[in-house]
Structures are given as C-alpha cells and as structure tokens.
C-alpha cells in the first residue's frame, strides 16, 4: 500500500464523512419541509452550513462540576468510530479504504464501541436530564446490537467470508435483499436504533429537553450532530454493500451504483424521523429481545439453507 494510496484512503473517508453528514442534514430539512407542507427554499441547501457557522460563533456552555475530559472526548470519539465504520465499506471493486479480512467484525466492533461516547456525552455534564438519556441509550444499544450483528452475519454465510469485498462479490448473480428478505429491514431498524435516529431517539428525546445534548452548545453540539449523521452514513453504506449488491449493477460504473444505493438507504433512514413517533423505552427493548432477535436467528438459518 503505497504512501499515496494510504493518504488517499484517509482523505477519501474524510470527504465521504463530510459530504455524507451534509447530505443527511439537507435530506432531513428537505423531508421536514415536504412533510410540513412548505415550499422548497434555498435555505434547505445552505441551512446546514449556516448552522455550522452558528456553532462556531456560539460559545460552549458548561455545568458546575462536569467530567471535562470525558465530555470533550464524547463527540470526537463518536465521529471517529463512525469514520472507522465507514472506512471498511468498499466504494467499488478497487476503491476500498481498508481491505480487511474481518471487515464485518470491525464494523460491529465500531458500532459496539460507539455506545461509550454516547453514554459519556450524557454522563459528563453532571445534570439529571442528560444522565437519564445516557442510561436509556445503554439499554437501547445493548438490545439492538444483537439483531444488527446477526443481520450482518446472515450475509456472510453465503459469501463464506467476513470481508465486505467478498460479500459484495458473492452477490453477483442475486442480491442479498432478494436472497435474504428479512435481512435488510432488520439491519436498517437495528442500525437506526444504534444511531438513535428518528423514532429511536431515546437518549436525545424532547421529553428530556434534548437528553444528552441538553447542556451542550456551540461547536460541541455541531460535532455531536455531525457524528450522528456520520453514523447514519456508515449504516446506509454498509446496508447498501451487504444487501443491495454494493457496486454491482448494469450500466453505471461501480462507485456510481454504490453511491446511489447508499443515498436511497440514507433517505429512507433520515425520513423515518418525520414518519414515526418516538418509541417507549421499555416496550422498545422487549420488542428487540422477543421479536427481532428470534427473527434474526431465523434469518441466519435461512441464510444457511440458502447457502447450501
């Protein structure tokens, strides 16, 4: 791996994160104005840039006795883990930031580690509402990590490899969304839960006055929202690679197919915020254990039978 390829990989993933996060913000505003029945305005495209500028202008508030280092680390680590998760997903047959033999396990490890910064973001301000948000998220992440990993596992059975490059290659004739119909919805629901977006927004809900971000402002808040958007981009990219055949597809070049599929899943994930109300914590956890994990296990069995 020559030095230029090394730097190119890092720059490429950085660019993908920034463009992806920006697209998430724009898609969120666009879908919001469609649902609210307002005309499309130029501020939908420029809005995210302006709110980032506002974040730079605004000062950073603090509380009486916070855990300062952990509070500062939280958004940084969250964005870093989202970038690491995205780095594993191949853009095309040849364009791949990190070709790792166990790419799937690394993606699962990044999402598992992402529990820590969200908990720290709620724990550090030493204020009751963010604290409740932090502990809610641990319940949510613990119960939705299993369906996420099992959905990804079911994809690696026919490919008999954990490298995402091989998983995409194994979908040459038939995409996994057709071969394993249960896989994509399970994965999207679990990935949206781990990124606590839309109806799964328990830690940052309005009933906790913003939850883990109730005490934050300025650039810390911008970094936090960018981290959440980046995690959504990583989930959409992995969904496209694992279930929609990645770069495979007639006509367009490989990377174009991958970008199109990722954008489709991204709009689906982002749109879920304006369609469904926030769930109740207890019911939502029981649903995962009682319904989603058995379904995911069934999906693994289907994958086994299909892959025979």
């Amino acid at each position: 791996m020559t030095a230029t390829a090394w730097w190119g990989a890092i720059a490429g993933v950085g660019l993908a994160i920034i463009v992806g996060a920006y697209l998430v913000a724009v898609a969120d505003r666009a879908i919001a104005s469609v649902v609210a029945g307002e005309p499309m305005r130029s501020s939908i495209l420029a809005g995210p840039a302006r709110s980032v500028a506002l974040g730079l202008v605004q000062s950073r508030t603090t509380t009486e006795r916070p855990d300062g280092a952990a509070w500062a680390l939280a958004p940084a680590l969250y964005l870093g883990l989202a970038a690491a998760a995205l780095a594993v997903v191949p853009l095309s047959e040849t364009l791949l930031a990190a070709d790792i033999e166990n790419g799937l396990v690394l993606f699962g490890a990044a999402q598992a580690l992402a529990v820590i910064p969200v908990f720290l973001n709620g724990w550090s301000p030493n204020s009751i509402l963010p604290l409740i948000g932090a502990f809610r998220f641990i319940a949510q992440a613990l119960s939705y990590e299993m369906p996420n990993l099992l959905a990804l596992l079911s994809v690696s059975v026919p490919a008999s490899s954990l490298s995402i490059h091989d998983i995409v290659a194994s979908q040459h004739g038939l995409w996994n969304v057709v071969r394993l119909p249960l896989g994509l919805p399970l994965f999207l629901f679990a990935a949206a839960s781990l990124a606590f977006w839309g109806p799964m927004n328990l830690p940052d809900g309005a009933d906790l006055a913003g939850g883990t971000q109730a005490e934050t402002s300025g650039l810390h808040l911008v970094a936090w929202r960018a981290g959440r958007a980046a995690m959504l981009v990583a989930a959409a990219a992995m969904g496209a690679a694992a279930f929609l055949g990645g770069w495979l597809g007639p006509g367009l070049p490989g990377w174009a197919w991958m970008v199109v599929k990722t954008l489709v899943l991204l709009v689906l994930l982002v749109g879920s915020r304006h369609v469904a109300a926030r769930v109740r914590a207890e019911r939502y956890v029981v649903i995962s254990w009682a319904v989603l994990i058995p379904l995911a296990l069934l999906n693994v069995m289907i994958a086994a039978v299909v892959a025979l």
Partner: protein
Amino acid sequence: MTARASAGWLTAVAARAEAPVFLARGIGTADADARLRASPRLRVLDSPRAAAVLVVAGCVPTELAEPLARVHDQMAHPRATVWWSGAGDSAPPVGWSHATIVGPRDDIEAAVVAAYRDVITGARCSEQTLLPDVDPAPWRGVGPYGHGGTGMTGGIPYGRPMAGRGDDRRDGLTLDVVLARIGPFFAHLPEGLVLEVTFAGDVVHDLTVKTPPVAGVDGLGARLPDDAVTATMAPDRAVPVAAIELARARQHLRWLARLLHLYGLDALARLVATKALSVPREPQELTALTRRLERCWALGWATRGVGVIDGVSAALWGGPVARAAGIPRDARANSPVYATLGFQPIVHANGDNCDRWRQRLAEAVQAIELAARAGTAVTEPGETIEPAAPPPPADFGDQLAALLIGTEWGDAVATIASLDPDVNAAGYLSKGATV
C-alpha cells in the same frame, strides 16, 4: 463585542441561519408556542443552552422572575432577549432593560429574527449575567478529604451533597434517589408548573406538584373573546357560537402541535402549528391530518395504554379528559342553540394518552364543522360555555402523584402533556403553594 464577532464573514453566514429560540412561557399568551413553531425561520429548542434568543411570552409573575433570570443566564453567548407582553401589557422588570419589547399583536417572528441577526453580527452586544456571580455552592475544600465527609463517602463535595439512598417501589433495591425540581420553564410542562420529582433511576419515585403563588394574576379577569373558552364561565352576554368553536379548535391544535414535538415529529408539529394560527374553515384539511396521525402506527403504539385515567378521577378532570375516558359530560349537550346545530358529544373508551389526543383531534374537527354551520347563532346570556381546556381539579397535585408515581419519566411527561391542564386560566396559580 466579543473578539469572535470580528470574524466578519463567519458571523454573516451564521446570521442567516435559523434563529435558535428558547420560549419561556408566562401567563396570558396562549398561542406563543404555535406562532414561533410555525415559522420556518426559527427553531424552538427544548433547552436554553444552544439558544441565541430568549422569548419571554406573556406576563411573568414576580415569583418566576428568579428562575427566568437563571434560564436567561444558562443560554450560550451571544444571546438576546425578546419580551413579548401578552394580554396584560406588563413591562419587563428592571434588570431586563436591554430586551426588545414586542406587543401582543406585533410580528414576533420578525422581531426575533432581527434580534438574532443583531446579536450574532455583533451589532447588539451579548447580554450579561443577570443573577449575582456568587458561587451558589461556595463550600468546596474543608475537612480531612477536602469535602467534609469521612473516608470515601458523605460530606458536600464541590459544595453540593450527593444523592441519598431510598427504598424502591418496584424491585426493592435500595439505591440512590435524586431529588430534581423540573422547573417552571420546562418546555413540555404546563406554564409555570414546578414538579418536585424524586427519581429512582429513570422511574418517578415520588412526585409533588409545587406551583408558585402568583399574586395579581386575577387582574386578568377580563379575557379576550379569543380565550373565552379556556375558563369555565357563564358570561352574562351572548357569545357567537362560531367564535367559541373556532377558539376551541385553535386551542386543541396548539396543544397537538406541542404534543407532536414532544414525540419527536417536528415537521408535523410545524404543520399543525400553522393550522392552529389560521384555523381552516372547512374540515377536510383536518380530516386529512387525522388520517395521517391514525396511520402513524408508532404514535398509537407509543401512547396506547399509557397514563390511564378512568372512573372517578376522570370525572374530576372534566372536559376532553373525561370524555376520552367514556364520561359523556359536555356543557354544550344541554344548550338549545347547540341542539339546533345537531351537536353530539364525542366519547372515547379507555382514557389513555392515545384516546386523549384522538378525542381532542376529533373535537377540533367537530368544532370547525359547528363553526361553519353556526353562522350567526349566539348562545343565551348566562349559559355555561364548555371550556376547551378546563382548569385542573382542586387536588391536581395528588391526582398527578397517584397517576405518575412508579412510571418512567418519558411516560410521565407524555401523560402530563396529554392532560393539558390550563393552569393559568383558573387562577390556579394563585393557590398558596411555594416553589
């Protein structure tokens, strides 16, 4: 002029962003929430930390002045205040001389955006702290371990005690219980309501309602026709039915906008807020909205079976809460003018959060139909008017405590929001409960 404001182009870009607003709701301006939420150039936040403009709506009684100053100080710099005097045109107290004053009928949106632009670009300097800069928990370093405790526990580390232990109501583990006072300006509680909640984890272990005594609120007796429906009263003059029903529809839609924001559906909240400002004449628009909310299975799934009120306590609440629990009591049922309009009270069955928002939405649709059919019909003088949001029962605190102790905090807030007690209208605030 903070050093930051000198970075010209950055503040210019930031100035054209959506203004982050924190709304501190006082007494008297009912549609403050809907007006600010409906505007696409503002973003109403739930916490003052990331807000740049503090909008103080209505008249804030003297007891809420200190919490209001604290909310103002908790905002990030640069910050500005817009004082939007409601029915009673009370000027802001002495410390707020720098605030922009906006009358009840002026364009609040333009004033807020202007204040935001000035304070971001530095044309208007950021407001300083109002409360005295004395450390509220001064005592930090006394005692063998620097906090007055013994060994690894106790004392007042960094000036505040640690939470104490308490027996638990649900699973018997004696762990810490935290006393938190969810303050008068919490976005999703009724205006001015203070809840003293003891949390055991995220479950409400204990709950007492503390509403501040508000002297001088009774002066608001002369209510505008717009709010005629919020107080149970029998006016001695004839009131047009259309005005009553439109005010009822407006009240329900305002409430629905806030509830949808509580459940995370911000875009739908904005849509309902715009409908609340200009109540649609024909009910088709609302029936489309009703279908959309019915189809949104998640809203049903999140509210079904939560905060069930039935039987005696439902009757005490009266109004939509009682009707949602199956008690068909409605003052309009035995009024002759409504009989001519063919009015039938709407009733739901099991009195949980889900039925309450369905009840209010159905009543809003029915109110618009009645207003369309009423034309110039008027009520007789002395006839009682059915309030859209009746005042809460006398033992409001005990009712809430019985209902919410042992529930998770998210459900507790949703249940209080679903009751929509109009704490101000009944002068309830003037009962002598201390903060």
